[in-house]
């Protein structure tokens, strides 16, 4: 590759843990890859599979969802529901020609700034290795709807 592929990744971060972890990483001035663009939701349970497909559809090479550790959900069990949905969706992704590795769910608590940095860097590298998501692979609006 002559020019290094710079993936664009959408991050759906839970307002109570992963989003705060990102804030903490900031206040601690940790440095990490700028590829993940964060969309804040109140709970990882709010992340709708269609939103994820929509992201792939509109040019995301990867999607990272950050929720609270099991048992720590601010809304009791939203993260478990996220887990179930994501697991299901991952099994469907190949049908759209999308490698399941492009979708990841991570538990990152508000105090785990370092972990956030590492996950973002590591995931960015993984997506970089996978290369850009072939546009024709992306689900059409119809599929997403």
């Amino acid at each position: 590759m002559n020019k290094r592929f710079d993936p664009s990744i959408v991050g759906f971060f839970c307002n109570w843990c992963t989003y705060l972890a990102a804030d903490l990483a900031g206040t601690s001035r940790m440095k990490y890859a700028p590829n993940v663009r964060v969309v804040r939701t109140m709970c990882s349970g709010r992340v709708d599979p269609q939103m994820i497909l929509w992201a792939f559809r509109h040019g995301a090479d990867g999607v990272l969802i950050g929720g609270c550790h099991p048992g720590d959900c601010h809304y009791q069990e939203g993260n478990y529901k996220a887990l179930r949905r994501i697991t299901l969706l991952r099994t469907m992704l190949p049908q759209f020609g999308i490698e399941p590795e492009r979708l990841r769910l991570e538990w990152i608590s508000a105090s785990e700034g370092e972990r956030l940095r590492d996950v973002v860097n590591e995931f960015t590298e993984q997506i970089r290795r996978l290369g850009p998501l072939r546009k024709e692979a992306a689900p059409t609006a119809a599929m997403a709807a």
Partner: protein
Amino acid sequence: MRLESENPLTLSNNGSSRIGFYVCHCGTNIAGVVDVQALAEYAAKLPGVVVSREYKYMCSDPGQELIQQDIKGNRLNRIVVASCSPHLHEQTFRTATAKGGLNPFYFHMVNIREHVSWVHEDRTRATQKAKALVRAAIQRVSFHKPLERKRVPIHPDVLILGGGIAGIHAALTMADAGKHVYLVERDPTIGGHMAKFDKTFPTLDCAACILTPKMSMVRAHPNITLWTYSEVTHVEGYVGNFKVKVKRKPRYIHEELCTGCLACVDACVYKDARYPDEFNLGLGKRKPIYIPFAQATPLVVLIDPETCIQFKSGKCKKTCVEACAERRAIDFEQREETKEIEVGTIILSTGFQVFDAKRIPNYGYGIYPNVYTALEIERLINASGPTAGEVVLRDGRKPQTVGIIHCVGSRDENTNRWCSRVCCMYSLKLAHLLKEHTGAEVYNFYIDIRTPGKGFEEFYDRLLKEGVHFIRGRVAEVTDWAMTPDEEGKLVIRAEDTLAGFVRRVPVDLVVLSVGLEGHADAEDVRRTFNITCSTEGFFLERHPKLAPVDTFTDGIFLAGCCQGPKDIPDTVAQAGAAAAQCMALIDRGYMEIEPNTAWIEEELCSGCHVCIAMCPYTAIHFDAQKKVAVLNEALCKGCGTCVAACPSGAAQQNLFRDEQLFAEVEGVLV
């Protein structure tokens, strides 16, 4: 309606949005990395943007003025500010928006400081990311709807968990202000660690003398319900009305009947105390029926079923019962009971535990009898302690030389990373007291002496004058093998005298381990019960290290004392006062405004599939049998949005996080 449109922007922005965009330099915090100029120019070209400005400090008054004037001057109907984390200034800008005459929820915030300028170095790529986030916000904000904040009433009663100096001070502060306080303590008495201390640094006033009066005030106060020997088992609800279950462990004594005369203790079939007593950390002995210490509050005895003959064999003469006579306070049948209370606010003041010195075997704790922890020494030199203040070692000797080892279980990647903050000062205090009590030669082994407090450095200076030795070096080991005659029969401390530049062996009679502070072993359970966050160290996490040091991320729950991090008594008391003030601010206002991010269900779209009903953790959704649709009770909804994500027909929607808002945002970060 969801995704027919390829581009929500066109769908939304039929010229109706007039967006004002503002990027904050935050001094150089943002401008140093992100090209704010370029960002403003970029935003100006985005559809719907009428005004696009960059300003040094948007959160400053002039910054906010700017927004208000533009709303009026340019008939803006949407506001986007790119600055710091919404957790910091979202409120500020919503207020500004409202002052400008717009509904505050027409505002949206972009985090380009914590999430961009502070974490990226490459100016170009950072700016590129900032642009994407800004574009997303601008697309999103067009879909914003005017909203009203929900108000929840605040129940005037308060729960305080933990009866150490923090809990005691917070309880008295609020009780004196006329609030009703439930003070719940796990041990049989309140007082916490402070009750165990001999003197307090740097003033050396006696801990008991300043604490016990406050303890009895708690006991006597009409506005305080004191439940010792009790634990919180369950918490539900949210700010304003928490429902709390408290487990009251049986002490086999009817608290209200016991007068604390201790006749039963004297009468116990065990003529002398023979079981290690918890309050004196096993240095003293107690009977199966006992009070923790003379000023225990409440002054009510309790029975330890583990050691009481009646419980073990059922065949005791029960001389205690005889002694108690017609008061009949003793009840071997007493069962654990559960109380249910409602409170509007909660203060956690659960304190700390000291580092377990056994975790560093090289220091010989539990191996050599004359190695003590600092807390044990507090009891040993305490006039009301097991030796009545006489410093006699476990082997009966009196120490002529003492070595105090600092940073035991602190500043160490292998145990606890943090500085425990109080050890330097309490080590100095113990050095002074031990010298005073025994006239011994005292050696301090330290890495750095940290005395950042009022009168602390002066106290250090006093110790230097008193001729206490200070050897700068972390101790490697405490052993009992002698190299020289004068080391025979002594404990030998091996450390580098880093200021001299060579290693020294110092023989001593008594080793004091200045153990660090750490979160309680069960802090994790408490955290989950109350649904708050722990930092990785096992201390509870404050909402903001500087601007919200006693708040948690859960509204209505506050922190006081060492459960939030190591701190000394003055800081603990100050923090307890702050937490009390926070509670009272809520109580006196009587209500709290909460984010209007609740969900609702559009009847006409609902297919009545029941999916959302199963999803809701708060049973806020029920099924209307007539209309055959799901109905959401807004009062119960906490706004997680799980039902929205699950709804197959798009009937469930969430304020501030509507599908079109999020889809627009997602598309925005990507386009």
